Structure formats: C-alpha cells, structure tokens
C-alpha cells in the first residue's frame, strides 16, 4: 500500500511548546483515515502542517498529492459574511479561474450539481448567514466536491452536526474513497471511527499508534493517550531527543 503522506519525525511548536511532538507515520493513499485524540492533542495543528499553514515545523512531510482540499473548523469562517451559497461553492474551482478569471458555464453547472448532491437543491441564492450549522457544513462539502482534490483534509467535519447530516456527509466521504481519493478526518466520535474508518492515527501530541482502527483504538492506547495529553509541563526544559537525519 503506497503512502499519500509520510510524516518523518515531525515537530510543530507554539511558543516553543510542542503541539505535535516527534511524530512519524504514514497515511495510506486512496484510503480514509481518522485522526483521533483528546482536545489539545495537536490534531488540527497536524492538519495545518500537512497543508503548510504553520510555520515552526521541524522534521519533514512528504506529500504525493497533486491537489489538496481542506475543510477548516467552522469557527475559522465568517458565517455572517454576505455571500450566497452558489458563490461559496464555486470558490472550489479557484484553481481553474483564480483571482481574475471568469467562472465558466461548466463550473456553474458543476457547482449546481455539487449543491444537489449534498442535498441543498434550491438553496443556491440563499445568503450563508441564513443557514444552520449543518446546512453550512453541507455547503462546505459541496465546495470540497468541486475542488476535485486527490487528498482531502477534514478538520472536525461533524462537530455539532445532527445524525442525518452526518450520514449524508459520510456518504460523500465514502464516494471519495471509491474515487480513489485519500481522506484524512479529525474526529471525536470513536464509535463512528470504529464503524466507518478502516485506518486511524491516535495522537496525544506524540503519536500513540497508527494503523488499522481496531488495533489503534484499543482501551490501553486510549488510556495512554489521555495520560499523555494531561502531562503538560509549564517549566519543561529543552527537548533532548536528537532530530533524526532525513535524506
């Protein structure tokens, strides 16, 4: 099985405190992988590092993906902004028309199709500030659909979302898998991960385990993860683990 992403001894720190600490792991290609761990375990930071959005990165990330799509946590989006559903979804084609080009008829047609397939037909002209959290998440999934990426990174896609919406959006994720795309999702619902995600990566600033979900989410691993996350030391000294040389 080839890897879509290869993390080699990755450390990301804020104010010198590592949020992700010496993590080495592989994310399998054309598979769906869940990233699991307690709050503050560095899950979102890991996603941002994969995207190249954080600065202080030691170690390396090898990425074979041609195009990456990213679903941020909703708090990072100004949901009161005056923009319509259709315009938001169309942004998924940014790589096609960029900052100055015109959206082609085909792009609008595809956007329409994406909106239909997340179950929001008829919402095209609605401003996004009239949507519920679940509906807005469907809009963002439609935008991801339009991005046609081979690697899709989802940061807590199902936080505060009802079960009907979750199962609809899970359908979209399984569709991506059938289309041979790699999906990485940060999740909190362990039952859902066990049910739907064959691969997992358990993180508690350091890597607890990664691989088949059944093995990774063992009771013993989860206990370890919780213990590691709580051991935050305000007066920690410099980390002595030498950085491995990467070729």
């Amino acid at each position: 099985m080839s890897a879509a992403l290869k993390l080699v001894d990755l450390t990301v720190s804020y104010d010198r405190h590592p949020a992700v600490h010496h993590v080495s792991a592989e994310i399998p290609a054309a598979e769906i992988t869940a990233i699991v761990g307690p709050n503050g375990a560095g899950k979102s930071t890991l996603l941002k590092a994969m995207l190249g959005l954080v600065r202080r990165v030691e170690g390396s990330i090898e990425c074979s993906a041609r195009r990456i799509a990213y679903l941020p946590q909703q708090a990072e989006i100004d949901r009161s902004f005056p923009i319509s559903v259709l315009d938001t979804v169309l942004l998924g084609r940014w790589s096609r028309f960029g900052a100055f080009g015109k959206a082609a008829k085909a792009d609008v047609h595809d956007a329409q199709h994406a909106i239909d397939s997340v179950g929001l037909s008829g919402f095209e002209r609605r401003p996004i500030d009239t949507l519920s959290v679940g509906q807005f998440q469907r809009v963002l999934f439609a935008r991801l659909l339009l991005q046609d990426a081979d690697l899709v990174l989802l940061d807590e896609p199902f936080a505060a979302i009802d079960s009907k919406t979750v199962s609809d959006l899970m359908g979209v994720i399984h569709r991506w898998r059938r289309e041979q795309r790699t999906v990485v999702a940060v999740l909190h619902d362990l039952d859902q991960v066990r049910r739907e995600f064959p691969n997992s990566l358990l993180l508690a600033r350091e890597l607890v385990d990664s691989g088949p979900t059944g093995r990774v989410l063992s009771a013993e691993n989860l206990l370890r993860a919780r213990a590691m996350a709580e051991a935050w030391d305000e007066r920690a000294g410099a980390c002595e683990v030498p950085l491995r040389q990467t070729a």
Partner: protein
Amino acid sequence: MYDFLFAPFADFGFMKRALVACLCLSLGGSSIGVFLILRRMSLMGDALAHALLPGAALGFLLGGLSLPAMSLGGFLAGISTALVSGAIARFTSMREDASFAAAYLTALALGVLIVSLRGSAVDLMNILFGAILAVDSQALLLVAGTTTLTLVGLAAIYRPLVVECFNPGFLAAMGVRGALYHYLFLGLAVLNMVAAFQALGTLMALGLMLLPAVAASFWAREVWSMTAIAAPLALLSGAIGLLVSFHAGLPSGPLIVLVASLFFLGSLLFGTRASVRARLSHPVHLRG
C-alpha cells in the same frame, strides 16, 4: 427652490469644486468603507486616518500649506503605520487592533507636536478638521485620480479580497498569498483617506467612507448592493451638508459628516434588515 438648492453651486466656484470633490470621495470611499466594515476594520481604519497626521504635518513643516507635500507625507505615514502595525501583529502575539491603537496614538501626538512647531492654531484646525470649501483644482485632480485608481483597483482585487474577508484560510490553503491583497486594499484605503483629509481633516476623513457604508448594511445583504446603496448616500450627505453649511454659515466638514450620521440613524431605525424596525415588527411567520 432653485435659489436654495442649485444657485449656490451654480454661482460659486468653490461650492462647485466642493460638490465635485464630494462626488469623487463618495464613489471611491464608500466602497472602501464597505470592505472596512466587512473586514471588521472600521475602528482600525479610523486609527489609520489619524495616523496620517504626522506625515501631513511634516509635509507642512517642510513645504508650508502645500497640497502635494502634505498629501505625500500623509500617504507615507499612513502606509508605514499600516505596515508596522501589521508586522508587529504578525511577528509578536499582540493583536492587530492593539498595535494599531498604539501606532496611531503615537502618530497623533507626534503630528500635533510637529504642527505646533511652526504653524498657528488655524493651520492645526485645518489639518485636523479640513476645509472642503478651500479645495482648488489641484486638490480636485488628486481626489479624482484617487477615485479612479480606487475603483479600478477594487474591481481588480475584488474576488480575492472578498474571499480573504470571508474565509482567509481558504486562500492560504490554495497557495494564494491573501496578505498581498490585504495590503493592496490597505494602500487604497490610505490613498482615499489622503484624498479625504483635505476636505474633512484627519479626524473625520473616514466619515464619508464609513457612515454611508454602515447605513447601507441595514438595507442590503450582498457586497455589491451595499456598495450600490452606500455611494449615493455618501453623495447625498455631501450635497446636503454643503447646502446647509452654505445657507446657515456653519463649517461644512462636520455638517457633511453629520448628515451622513442622520442617514445612518435613519437606516438604523427603518432599514430592511437588522434594524430597530425589523426587530420590533412582528410580521406573520411563514409556513416553511
């Protein structure tokens, strides 16, 4: 009627020029104002306008009451304030609004000090509060040129600017440098403040940009329609303010801004969305 509404503009050159200046400032400034609001930068914009003062004052110190010197100085001061506070916010954990406040307070104090080195209290009043009736053809050219540049510039960076306001992480994930557009926009904003400052002074330069834009946000819910409403409101404020100031013999700058405030107040009370009226009325709810 004619005597009241049109004669002042027809008979007096300075009123004509002031009206044209208002027209230009309304067209370019109000769209800048709309984006300032959408970026939640209204107060930072205000701080930026105050920060023009030391530059304008330095220009004044070196060139006297000359428009090019004061405008150039003001522009440089505004841009460097924006860049420095942006840089401080990026490199330290200080929030951008705090660093803007620190920068503009420093600038304002410095500016007042510089003007007082050489000028009289009248000069200081002119710089702080403007003199739209003293707009000459040179100033008019500056204002009109600014408006042209603003409209063309905003049209060019419209899409990335909108996305940068709404979902900054998206541009970053697409590998687009959103900060570039942010700074282009700040540059245009500073340019408009420089253009407005001769007419309205550094303290109220933002009045004609921001108040109509805020008023428009009570009527419209798209970026383009907000702009389409804000520009005529700004123009009306300018014209009415000038007329009242002409007939009542009161200073024009504050009157223009006050008329814009009245539009704001009216919109706040009677606007179609999020207004007091919308809050108090209880229309029959729909079926679905």
